[in-house]
């Protein structure tokens, strides 16, 4: 009987025994990770579809000649910087310094807003030059279609991220926050950055 109890305790103490989270996180953070992974699957499918469409097209325009690469590089710099500042916000929230956390989250929101502004400028410029979902002046229709779908979907994520960050910042300013909520918002924001790193490399540079 004793051996049976000891065996039960040994199983419960193991990673997959049911006694504790095998992932070592609380449920909210784990659910955020599950969401990020499912969202990453969507973006992965989108980028592979883009690669497929590009490689079945007889020719593909040279992106560095079509897009304003100074602007795109600035957007990348901006998003990476906002991600670094968000990491600092998470550190401050974990240390229980709500005031500093709100300051850093506000800076992150500013970075995200600048990114969205640049994207609006880029889109309007692209449309002004004749780009539409079904056709564009540079070559195959898929060139503009994949641009609008991928950067549009990413831009929507940036907008969602800004909304989440604004809610977290307001709650933190009111003293109604937990370090986990700031960390979860941060995870989402870093994910938005990760996706942009892929888009920057595979859509704009390759």
């Amino acid at each position, binding site marked *: 009987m004793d051996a049976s109890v000891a065996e039960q305790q040994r199983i419960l103490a193991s*990673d997959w025994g049911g006694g504790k*989270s*095998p*992932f*070592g*996180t*609380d*449920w909210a*953070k*784990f659910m955020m*990770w599950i969401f990020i*992974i499912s969202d990453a*699957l969507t*973006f*992965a*499918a989108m*980028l*592979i579809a883009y*690669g*497929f469409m590009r*490689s*079945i*097209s*007889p*020719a*593909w*325009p*040279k992106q*560095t*000649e*079509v897009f304003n*690469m100074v602007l795109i*590089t600035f957007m*990348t*710099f901006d998003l*990476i*910087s906002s*991600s*670094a500042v*968000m*990491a*600092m916000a998470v*550190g401050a929230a*974990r*240390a229980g310094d709500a005031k500093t956390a709100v300051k850093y989250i506000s800076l992150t929101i500013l970075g995200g807003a600048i990114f969205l502004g640049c994207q609006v400028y880029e889109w309007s410029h692209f449309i002004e030059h004749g780009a539409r979902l079904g056709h564009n002046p540079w*070559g195959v229709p898929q060139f503009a279609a994949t641009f609008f779908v991928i950067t549009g979907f990413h831009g929507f994520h940036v907008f969602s991220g800004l909304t989440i960050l604004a809610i977290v910042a307001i709650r933190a300013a009111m003293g109604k926050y937990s370090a986990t909520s700031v*960390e979860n918002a*941060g*995870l989402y924001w*870093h994910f938005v*950055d*990760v996706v942009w*790193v*892929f888009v*920057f*490399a*595979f859509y*704009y*540079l*390759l």
Partner: protein
Amino acid sequence: MSNDHAHPSGNRQYFTTWCWLLLMTLFALAIGYVPMPEGVKAFLLVVVTLAKIGLIGSIFMHLKFEKMNLVMLTFSPLLLAIILFFMTRGETRMHDATHVVLSHEGWVPPVEGAAEAEHAK
């Protein structure tokens, strides 16, 4: 349940990571402009991108301090992307000599069957 693993407290590590990310972004930009075979360019961009993702994931997203079970879970989309890439590869024109990246300064599209004609010579 609360997290029972260590997290970084200082901003110094984030600043160092930010510097590395900027350097790698500039390197990726240079790869985009320097003329080289597309295969080499793709390989270099994949390496730089994965390095950047590794840094963001491990430092900014704290995966460095998480359990290996969670870290492995986050790799599943990458695995799916690789599977999808090889599933669709056979249908693409990656080895087609007529498939080009064009400069929109006076490029003429290839004539259908030009590669076969060239091969017949």
